[in-house]
């Protein structure tokens, strides 16, 4: 493995200028749970690793009084799921944060890192999509934002530009009758990469019987996490019933473009998308009703 420097940055400006200087020969490290493995596996070579965990903005986790959630890019998963208020307000995020890799990994791995790593099977990305997450990126050219669903551009590729880094992910306050859930299918009970994963979010009407709007996102069934716009569109205006969930599952399944690999076949993945869409919609609706 090519030797690299370890540089702990203490502020964003310093980190950005390091990234600009090193270009593709440096990366930001949060938990390191993907980065260090990839470096050892020589997927790429670096001259420097920039540790982001000393940058205050990247370590902030704030549930504001108005109900919006801001997750710093390097905040480890355990901090998210040990915050009772966040658990109550954003259970769909907690579903993912408590699934990634096991307790040891969750002590360090971050949702921001999971997002930037951009594997199609990432557990953390689909929940962020259905919660309408927005990323803040800062680079040499300044700061910009974009919706999470636009951030991953291919397997292991994201929208970060030259010298640019992820600062935080902002989730707006969920609507009153909002509920979301994430489930994935794995062959064991822990420690596996998702064969397929689905995040579903619904906003119900005041009666709790009708879906006003919904967002469904699919993991591990395409080159990037897929924002299932057809299934999401279908759900708007539908009764919150098993029949609706099943139909949405069928539609979502058609939006999946999985491959067959050692973790699952095309057929299995299409099938699982249907199953998991039904299940997460049912769970999201239950959570939405509980919020009323």
């Amino acid at each position, binding site marked *: *493995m090519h030797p690299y420097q370890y540089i*702990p940055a203490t502020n964003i400006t310093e980190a950005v200028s390091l990234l600009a200087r090193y270009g593709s020969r440096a990366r930001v490290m949060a938990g390191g749970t993907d980065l260090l493995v990839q470096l*050892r596996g020589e997927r790429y070579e670096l001259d420097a690793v920039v540790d982001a*965990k000393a940058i205050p903005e990247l370590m902030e986790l704030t549930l504001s009084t108005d109900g919006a959630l801001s997750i710093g890019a390097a905040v*480890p998963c355990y901090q998210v799921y040990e915050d009772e208020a966040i658990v109550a307000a954003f259970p769909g995020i907690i579903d993912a944060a408590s699934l990634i890799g096991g307790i040891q990994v969750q002590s360090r791995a971050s949702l921001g890192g999971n997002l930037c790593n951009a594997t199609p099977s990432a557990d953390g990305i689909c929940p962020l999509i259905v919660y309408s997450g927005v990323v803040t990126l800062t680079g040499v050219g300044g700061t910009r934002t974009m919706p999470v669903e636009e951030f991953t551009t291919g397997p292991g590729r994201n929208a970060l530009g030259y010298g640019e880094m992820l600062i935080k992910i902002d989730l707006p306050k969920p609507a009153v009758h909002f509920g979301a859930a994430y489930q994935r299918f794995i062959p064991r009970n822990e*420690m596996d990469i998702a064969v397929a994963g689905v995040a579903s979010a619904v906003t119900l009407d005041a009666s709790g019987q009708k879906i006003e709007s919904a967002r469904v996102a699919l993991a591990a069934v395409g080159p990037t996490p897929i924002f299932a716009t057809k299934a999401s569109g279908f759900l708007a205006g539908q009764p919150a019933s098993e029949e609706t969930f099943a139909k949405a599952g069928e539609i979502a399944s058609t939006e999946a473009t999985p491959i067959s690999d050692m973790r699952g076949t095309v057929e299995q993945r299409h099938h699982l998308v249907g199953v998991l869409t039904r299940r997460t919609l049912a769970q999201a609706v239950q959570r939405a009703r509980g919020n009323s």
Partner: protein
Amino acid sequence: MTQTPEQSVRKVSVQCTLNGQPTEFLAAPYVSLLETLRETLGLTGTKEGCNDGNCGACTVNVDGRIVDSCLMLAAEAEGKTIETIEGVAPAGGLHPLQQAFLEEAALQCGICTPGFLVSAKALLEREPGADEQRIRLWLAGNLCRCTGYDKIIRAVEKARDQMK
């Protein structure tokens, strides 16, 4: 003597608290905490099973959280409080978990045992009442191939009951 390629990337000096003692060491910036514990500090109780965060044999406690030390750079230990298996027992004695592991025959080859002890200790300190399912979930990141986990879980439950 000409420098090895590694020597052009100089070692960094790290200060931390290790098993209760202030500790200072040099480490190449790209080596893991696991490698440094074992090779530089002579603390071979923490084991390498896979070097990619999938077996938990390298589990250590950093600032109260269990981590896979293979997925942490030694350089990141700066300013941290680290406990390895060598720090689990009180001086001259055994931690209730260690005693329970012995009594319940919760080890066969013993290679996974340090990782399990560090993980289980962290659990019982945070959740003194953890039940079997919670224990199993918490320990799912520690692989054992010899015991089938049964006696490990029983040992953790025994220690839990004794520590209350």
